[in-house]
């Protein structure tokens, strides 16, 4: 009986392995020179296509593929050959994904989708001189470390600290007379990072912060009655929530239960609150949130992108998708600017693209007049949206 089991297990293993290799093959793609003056660029990237964070990886892959298909179908001289590897949002797997892509001959990269993976391969991209721009890896570790700047590594999304600064700036410009309370998650790098920068910038902008000790941790992320009572008691009429949408949904509910109705203000982690299963969206009415992308915006680029994405994949794109879409078009624009063509000196490509990125402005679906700093961080105006009747509406 035991032997039979072993044999069965062995067969199962072989079958699964065969399944994997089937999926992986046939994706090589040759860089064939074409006679009509077009040039094909090998665009790589890795992200979680399986596992817990696969929603993010799939959004990036789908949107990048959409952009690549659009460009390849157009009369652009630059064509892309796109390959995305699975890294399961894991640093070690990202390193092997990077090796696979490097062997494939990747010339330009979408870097990684998540911060943890990106931090593991940031130095490799720098050493090998491959230009990389991440759609969504928001940690600063992707573009520079304390001692070293990676000149060829760029970001399309805001860095965590920048969101804090941008939120304070937005409040100073539009909600300056409010008394502000902050509730944040102290054991989360993202939340604590935004919080610290926000507090510093709020002080610089003379914002009236009346309560800033509303910290909670993973173990105490269900009961917010004390923080809310303290905020109410301090007279706060704006509560800043630099946290993910799940605990935020509890805060909104508990605030309503105690008849406390300040303006709530979130950052990009709040994105997704309306799609939370079972969430009473009326609780989020009037909630401000800072996001680079609003799918219902009426500008031409966004309308086109949302429509094309929906037709192809049957769902509304999120900000990860939008950032990835912008990455591909920004790379295309930079390649056109440096007049990339057949026989271009490959070893100078990364520096030339980096020089382009730090000097050009780019208009995409996640913002207009984007520019990049030497350290690879993006500068774009965050869009504030207000949830009105259950949908995002631009705040201005």
């Amino acid at each position, binding site marked *: 009986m035991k032997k039979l089991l072993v044999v069965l297990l062995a067969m199962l293993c072989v079958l699964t392995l065969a399944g994997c290799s089937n999926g992986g093959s046939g994706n090589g793609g040759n860089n064939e020179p074409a006679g009509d003056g077009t040039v094909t660029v090998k665009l790589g990237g890795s992200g979680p296509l399986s596992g*817990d964070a696969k929603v993010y990886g799939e959004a990036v892959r789908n949107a990048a593929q959409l952009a690549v298909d659009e460009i390849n179908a157009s009369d652009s001289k630059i064509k892309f050959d796109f390959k995305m590897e699975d890294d399961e949002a894991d640093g070690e797997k990202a390193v092997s994904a990077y090796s696979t892509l490097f062997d494939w001959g990747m010339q330009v990269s979408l870097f990684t989708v998540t911060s943890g993976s990106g931090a593991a391969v940031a130095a490799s991209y720098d050493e090998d001189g491959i230009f990389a721009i991440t759609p969504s890896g928001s940690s600063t570790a992707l573009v520079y470390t304390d001692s070293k700047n990676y000149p060829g590594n760029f970001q399309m999304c805001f860095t965590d600290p920048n969101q804090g600064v941008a939120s304070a700036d937005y409040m100073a410009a539009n909600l300056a007379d409010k008394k502000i309370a902050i509730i944040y998650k*102290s054991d989360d790098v993202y939340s604590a990072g935004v919080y610290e920068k926000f507090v510093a910038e709020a002080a610089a902008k003379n914002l009236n912060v009346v309560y800033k*000790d*509303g*910290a*909670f*941790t993973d*173990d*105490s992320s*269900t*009961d917010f*009655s*004390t*923080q809310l*009572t*303290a905020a109410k*008691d301090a007279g706060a009429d704006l509560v800043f929530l630099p946290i993910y949408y*799940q605990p935020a*949904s*509890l805060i909104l*509910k*508990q605030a309503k*239960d*105690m*008849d406390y109705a300040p303006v709530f203000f979130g950052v990009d982690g709040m994105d997704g609150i309306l799609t*939370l*299963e*079972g*969430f*009473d969206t009326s609780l989020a009415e009037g909630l401000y949130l800072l996001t680079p992308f609003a799918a219902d915006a009426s500008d031409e680029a966004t309308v086109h992108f949302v429509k094309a994405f929906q037709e192809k994949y049957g769902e509304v794109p999120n900000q990860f998708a939008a950032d990835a879409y912008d990455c591909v078009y920004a790379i295309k624009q930079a390649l056109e600017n440096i007049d990339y063509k057949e026989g271009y000196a490959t070893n100078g490509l990364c520096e030339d693209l980096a020089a382009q990125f730090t000097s050009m402005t780019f208009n995409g679906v996640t913002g207009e007049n984007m520019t990049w700093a030497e350290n690879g961080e993006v500068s774009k105006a965050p869009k504030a949206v207000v949830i009105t009747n259950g949908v995002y509406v631009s705040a201005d």
Partner: protein
Amino acid sequence: MTFLTYLISGLALGSVYAIIALGYTMVYGIAKMLNFAHGDIIMAGGYVAFYAFSKFGLPGYLCIILSIIFSTILGVIIERLAYKPLRAASSLSVLITAIGVSYFLQNAAQLMFGSDTKIFPAMLTDGSLKLFNGQLTISYLTIITIVTCIIIMVGLTTFINKTKIGKAMRACAEDKGAAQLMGINLNTTISITFAIGSGLAAIAAVLLCSTYPSLSPTLGSMPGIKAFTAAVFGGIGSIPGALLGGILLGIIENLTKAYISTQLSDAIVFTVLIVVLLIKPTGLLGKKENVKV
């Protein structure tokens, strides 16, 4: 007035802890074991109520009854399958088994319902009571929680003191061997204890999930640990002790959060526990046991 708000929400939190602590304390008193899976029975009860309400659209009270029935059966099954065969084993084996059952339930829930947090619907009541010209707002849920806790305490004390089964339970707690000699069926009594504890866990689940409307496979672990602490605090094995421990714990936790630090509240709560145990090792209302040699 703010102090009163903190006090009332602490009282409500403490009431939930007390209801959960009852499960720990009764099982400990009678079977002399720590049922670490108790917190996960809360979670299971929460999921049953959630699916009954949001997927099958049953009315609130039916969901609660269903949840109680399910949890009761689950508690008894766990006792029969996992703990009963170990009745004669060392207490360490039983403890490890209990931890194992706890992880089994958590992972089974993750497999069945997914690891994402679900929003628990308002199945009991919404809205709040306003007093003193709106200066004090108490949600109806808070009142229901506190009242439920009182009813359960009174009911349970009567049950333990007046009924035949209650007397059998007390006899088992006092001396298992003698109780069996007197014709009390030990296994039935322990099963009934588990059934009552698990049924109470389901009530706690609905109260907990309604107050903090989120539901995840690890829902029960933190309240479980806190309630266990409350049971030890009040004197494990003692029913009034569980009530006192739970309510004190809830109030201390909320007041520390409010006036000292939101981040240090757990540290302070457990420091209080250590101090109490140093001064009174059996807990606040625990009985001193004379071990005869």
